[in-house]
């Protein structure tokens, strides 16, 4: 089933977050998870032999609503992609700043906080 491939993608991202010892690779793991979720949403919105939800001047509303794929998940994914980009920018800034402080991306070097 196609959804399980999405699930696997998400799990690979989760695994990456869990085992990585490098701040940038943790960010990459989160990115992979995000891709998985977006793909899942778009797959949920698909209908067999569907067309993009953009009307041509010729078609009638009834024909169109019988054949187009679901527009709502697409809107959600658009929103979510841009949110993801914002979070990514923030985390990249954190990584860069941490690098400046510690001289490395390795989280094993960053152990000021414990407990």
């Amino acid at each position, binding site marked *: 089933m196609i959804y399980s491939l999405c699930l696997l993608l998400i799990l690979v991202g989760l695994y990456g977050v869990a085992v990585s010892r490098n701040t940038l690779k943790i960010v990459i793991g989160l990115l992979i998870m995000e891709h998985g979720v977006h793909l899942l949403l778009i797959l949920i919105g698909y209908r067999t032999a569907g067309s*993009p939800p*953009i009307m041509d*001047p010729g078609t009638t509303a009834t024909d169109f609503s019988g054949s187009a794929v679901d527009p709502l998940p697409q809107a959600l994914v*658009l929103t979510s*992609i*841009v949110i993801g*980009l*914002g979070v990514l*920018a923030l985390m*990249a*800034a954190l990584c*860069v*700043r941490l690098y*400046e402080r510690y001289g490395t991306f390795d989280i094993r070097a960053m152990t000021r906080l414990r407990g």
Partner: protein
Amino acid sequence: MNRDPSDQGMGEIVRTVARWLRGFILAYGIYVVLHGHITPGGGFEGGIVIACVFILLTLAGGQDLGLSFFSRRAALSFISVGGLLFLALAWMGMWWAGGAFLQNFIGTSEEARFSLFSAGTIPILNIGLGLKVASSLFLVFTVLAAFRIDAASEKPEEEGSGS
């Protein structure tokens, strides 16, 4: 300002090509924003394309070239302008047109369908969104890219208090 060599941008060829391309990509970005309600595209898409133009210029020609077209201060004010345009329309729907917050209050006429000026507030919202997305992304990029270069110098930060 003392720059490290990698910030001089790339070779002459890349720089020239980038200069040729910038007009086309910019025009494409603006087209995508303006036709967002008719064809695939919209504020997000076009905004990202426009941001890419300036990022391309920055990568190809170095910080100075990129920032000479679009300074950080300008980017910050564009972010605000875009956001405020969105909010202003939202409030207008409520107070001026007497409807609800975010109501699409400009009429949508039957005959104007599929033309540029149809769909009420949607194109205007798209423009606001495009401005905001483009300038935010460019700003984030330049700040991130410039951080390493300026970290050593003690020059005070270009203050963008116009937020």
